[in-house]
């Protein structure tokens, strides 16, 4: 009998499976569930993008591309970051096309981390940052952001967690699961702390197009003195509804991108060719499609936030991504209890906030990547659930 636990990597074995796995399994076993639990757009990839992908297949463009990605795509990405965020990147040296934002995060961490390096990770946030940091040999330093600060990272929180081992800060805004964004002034306070230190910011901006309200998304790399210390990560999954196409990119100083590219080259070769061709079309001609989707998300956002507030579950206004993060503490239930009871009694699936970090306890994540009527039905059932709790 082979004892695999002796053969598998200790680091991997020590990574605990997501606590939410049990909850997923319950949700899967029940019929007739109305879900607000998914983190993926409901829109189809715009037809122009699908057509471009299909055309490239018909032409037989199915070979490897350059490791860094098609020249044309990197040029379009450079144009995009310039016109949207005033960020100038040289397509030949400062941009790497990756398999989703996910690969960009992984490869960037692996390019930066020496064993024992600390990586500051604000939470609640996307669950992958912590395990990927560990897999790369780094030590995650969790900063539990606070509800009263709208779950934004405060400069003093950052400062008190910086040690002489700190290599990088992961800055994930707009945020999954909280929907929080950081505005120019708030980013400036963070930049102020970082400029004096050799700490790299890994800015995960995958939800940058899904920004709502008066001010546009700001990348921390736009701030004076920050471009040289930021790796900006973005992609096509959320903005262009291209989740399954697996395409993202990392932009940053050439010296860092070069090393990230080494990892990418050896581990991946290149991002999917068809997706790259499709993405060129996306950047060239789909601004209005993205705007249409953004407007629809915005409509739904207003409905869901008002919906939760009307039910007495106070919900701060999410200014980005497609998640609402209402406060369920007044029910007296824990996040896990709330979600499980809601699932069993009313067949509504939402995600417990503590799945994303300790300070998510007492909150739930409700996605609004669903139609308005779907959202309203879910809210109505949550209302019944709350009434029955009393």
């Amino acid at each position, binding site marked *: 009998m082979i004892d695999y636990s002796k053969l598998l990597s200790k680091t991997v074995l020590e990574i605990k499976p*997501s606590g*939410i796995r049990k*909850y*997923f399994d319950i*949700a*899967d076993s029940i019929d007739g*569930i109305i*879900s607000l*639990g*998914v*983190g*993926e757009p*409901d829109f189809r990839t715009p037809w122009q993008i699908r057509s471009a992908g299909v055309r490239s297949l018909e032409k037989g463009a199915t070979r490897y591309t350059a490791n860094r990605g098609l020249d044309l795509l990197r040029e379009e990405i450079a144009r995009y970051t310039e016109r949207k965020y005033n960020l100038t990147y040289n397509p030949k040296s400062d941009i790497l096309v990756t398999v989703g934002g996910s690969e960009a995060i992984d490869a960037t961490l692996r390019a930066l981390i020496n064993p024992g390096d600390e990586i500051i990770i604000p939470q609640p946030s*996307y*669950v992958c940052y912590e395990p990927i940091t560990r897999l790369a040999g780094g030590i995650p330093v969790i900063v539990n952001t606070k509800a009263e600060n709208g779950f934004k990272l405060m400069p003093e929180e950052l400062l008190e967690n910086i040690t002489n081992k700190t290599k990088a800060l992961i800055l994930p805004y707009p945020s999954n699961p909280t929907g929080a964004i950081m505005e120019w002034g708030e980013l400036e306070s963070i930049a102020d702390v970082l400029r004096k230190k050799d700490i790299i910011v890994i800015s995960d901006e995958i939800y940058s197009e899904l920004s709502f309200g008066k001010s546009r998304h700001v990348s921390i790399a736009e701030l004076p003195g920050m471009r040289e210390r930021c790796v900006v990560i973005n992609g096509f999954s959320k903005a262009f509804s291209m989740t399954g196409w697996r395409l993202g990119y990392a932009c940053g100083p050439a010296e860092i991108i070069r090393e990230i590219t080494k990892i990418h080259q050896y581990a991946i070769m290149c991002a999917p060719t068809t997706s790259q061709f499709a993405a060129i079309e996306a950047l060239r001609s789909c601004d209005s499609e993205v705007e249409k989707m953004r407007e629809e998300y915005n*409509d739904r956002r*207003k*409905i869901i936030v*008002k919906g939760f507030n009307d039910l007495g579950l106070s919900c701060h206004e999410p200014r980005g991504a497609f998640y609402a993060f209402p406060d369920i503490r007044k029910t007296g239930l824990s996040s896990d209890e709330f979600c499980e009871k809601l699932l069993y009694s009313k067949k509504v*699936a939402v*995600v417990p906030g503590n*799945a*994303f970090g300790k300070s998510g306890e007492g909150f739930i994540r409700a996605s609004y990547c669903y139609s*308005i*009527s779907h959202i*309203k039905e879910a809210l109505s059932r949550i209302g019944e659930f709350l009434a029955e709790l009393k």
Partner: protein
Amino acid sequence: MNTKILKLIEANARLSYEDIATICEIPKDEVRAEIEAMEKAGIIKGYKGIIDWEKLDTNSVSAIIELKVTPKANLGFEEVAEIIARYPDVESVSLMSGACDLIVVVKGKTFHEVSAFVAKEIATIDSVTSTSTQFIMRRYKEFGVELFDSDSDERGKISL
């Protein structure tokens, strides 16, 4: 005129005034007033349900009729179009560029009923010089709504 309100109603006529107010960030009373004004001005013509009758197996047949019209002194395109439009079985009438002049969509219970209607009521109109009837075998999309069973939500129930 609030075009955002119009777009919302066009996509879903059953959206409540309250929801429209939430989305447009204006008071509910203002939404009601705007909608009533647009109804009065004839900008909002009505609210109809989109029914897929084929699912019910009822007798229902539609046809697209292409008409050539030679306008006469008191019976130009407008007059002919209006005469045809007034028939309850006529679903739509459109003036066209190109080879034919008017396209009419007629709905009836059977092929025979529709053909008889065209022969008796449409073809006999003085300015109408020819008709060409094509029956709709199956509708796939109507008023922006896909009628075939769209793929179910493949995203699963939860993801991080």
